């Protein structure tokens, strides 16, 4: 049996005294796209933060294996260098740091961590220009401070640009559809779809079925009260849309 790209085993996490993840079990095989759907407050975003290594959460139990390797002891930058990428629901504004400068620092830091040669500036510029084209990101936007004054759509496109450049093997997309109009949603989804491939897995977190019309998942998981309560094919998303989450609450109880 091949090693799954991501394997979450009985993951428990809390913030302050409140347990938010209560035994998450989830496996994403290499090359597959899985969706996690759940209502607000079910712990979906916490899962994404815990995977990326945000310090606010205390892991009390469980394991997270990325390509067979336990990553829970690694800091966020080390996890990123191992190929994990989180597309933020609310990308953070960083005043005074030009987007281009940031992109170069991130790419070179990852190459360095993997013992690879850093990119030359012309190669880097070319890569950014290429990746930016399909996402409608021009050089003006890249000169601006990272995410500062970006519209909702620009922020999400910038996230996908980073994903394209960093070429992670495991992408976690946290509510990438929030705050996007139909056109922006299409641009972002096309960007994500272009990155699908056999060596790359994705975990798409959303509470609307709408996104999954654009990014069609292989498997849908229903998340409730801090764990996965049901898994199925893409038709499960449609079932959720018509029945609502209420029908799944019992499974969680």
């Amino acid at each position, binding site marked *: 049996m091949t090693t799954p790209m991501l394997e979450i085993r009985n993951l428990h996490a809390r913030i302050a005294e409140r347990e938010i993840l209560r035994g998450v079990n989830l496996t994403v095989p290499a090359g597959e796209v899985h969706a996690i759907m759940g209502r607000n407050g079910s712990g979906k975003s916490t899962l994404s933060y815990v995977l990326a290594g945000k310090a606010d959460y205390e892991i009390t139990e469980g394991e997270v294996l990325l390509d067979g390797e336990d990553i829970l002891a690694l800091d966020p930058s080390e996890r990123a260098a191992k190929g994990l990428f989180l597309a933020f629901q609310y990308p953070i504004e960083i005043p005074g740091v030009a987007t281009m400068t940031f992109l170069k620092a991130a790419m070179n830091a990852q190459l360095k961590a993997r013992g690879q040669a850093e990119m030359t500036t012309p190669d880097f510029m070319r890569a950014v220009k290429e990746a930016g084209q399909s996402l409608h990101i021009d050089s003006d936007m890249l000169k601006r401070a990272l995410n500062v004054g970006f519209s909702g759509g620009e922020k999400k496109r910038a996230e996908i640009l980073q994903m394209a450049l*960093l070429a992670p093997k495991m992408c976690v997309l946290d509510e990438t559809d929030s705050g996007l109009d139909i056109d922006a949603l299409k641009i972002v989804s096309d960007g994500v779809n272009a990155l699908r491939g056999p060596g790359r897995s994705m975990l798409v977190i959303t509470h609307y079925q709408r996104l999954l019309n654009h990014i069609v998942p292989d498997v849908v998981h229903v998340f409730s009260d801090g764990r996965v309560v049901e898994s199925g094919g893409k038709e499960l998303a449609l079932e959720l849309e018509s029945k609502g989450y209420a029908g799944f609450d019992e499974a969680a109880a």
Partner: protein
Amino acid sequence: MHVPVRIGPAEAKLIEQLGSRGAAAAAERLAQSGLPTRKVESYHYTDLKMLLRTVPELASAEKALSEPVFRVPGAHRIPMTNGIADLDGTEPAGVRAGTTKGSALTERDDVLVRLNAALAAETLRLDVEGTVGTVLHIDRRTEGDAGHMNDSVHLFVADGARATVIETFSGSDEGHLSNHASFVALGAGVELTHILLDLSGAGATSFATAEYQIGAGAKLRTVTIHVGSALSRINLFARFAGEGAHADITGLNLATEGQHSDITLEVSHNVPRCSSKPLFKQVARGRSKAVFQGKIVVAPNAQKTDAKLMMQGLMLSDEAEILSKPELEIFADDVVCGHGSTVGALDEDSMFYLMSRGIPQAEAESMLVRGFLEEVLDPIADEQLHDALESVVEKWLST
């Protein structure tokens, strides 16, 4: 009843030095009041009586021996060693250089100004006319063995002139006490960028006072940067002398392990329709203390004044201290004035975001600090000067 103050060894030395230069009045004044303590409001956070333990011998004339610690590519550099300018007659067109006797600052009631007025032997006087495309770099050094050095610069920028001037402070010895004076006069319609950069040795004591007199319709940008010296106090006084002028008075106060660094600013709006935007950023790490005091005074007739003072502090360690005191004294009724002061640690969400992209912790931290400081450096138009200052900050962050 007058209670005589106890005179410590540093004060005794200063009194002796003033006496030896024939400054009897200044010596007498210091003997009576001593160095300012925390009870003197303007020195509340920088108690010189306590902080200044020793005063080295008065520095004698020296030739510049050490290599310049800072160079701006393409700039015209005027070395000034232990108060004596080395003028070779190659100043760029529009710049006239010469010297006058004594200090450029005499008037102000401040201990550092009184010392400089009594002890600075001569003043480098620069007269600037027209548009000077070359950056002028006044490289003020304290050379030789540990010494007490007072130097002085008078910069006169004629009506309509445009120039960029940087003054750097540095020296050969950790035991130096340097006390610098600068007087900067802007004529009508002048556009001037004036930078003060303290690069004194990490153990040195560095004092400076800069006065700006701003003519009608002039545009002044000042950037005061502290990175060196264990004990530092920089006085900045800006006075609007003509209507319709604007001043961006900015600075970076970077304090590291063992340093006490104080920047104290007073902006006087004495005439109507001027605007000022003081913006100071302080970063403190290790066991250090960064102090900023900023006061804006609006005179009764200075109507339509628009002044906004901002101090932002960033603490990089639990032992660091950042002290900030913004003040407004407004005697006119038709003005827009405000002040703000914030202090915090590096934003955790920003750190997480950068690190989640693979940027290691130390690099992410320095990226955020640079980003924080960039607002002050960004407006410096001369690209080579901007980059040179950025590399000073870069170096501070990496050591």
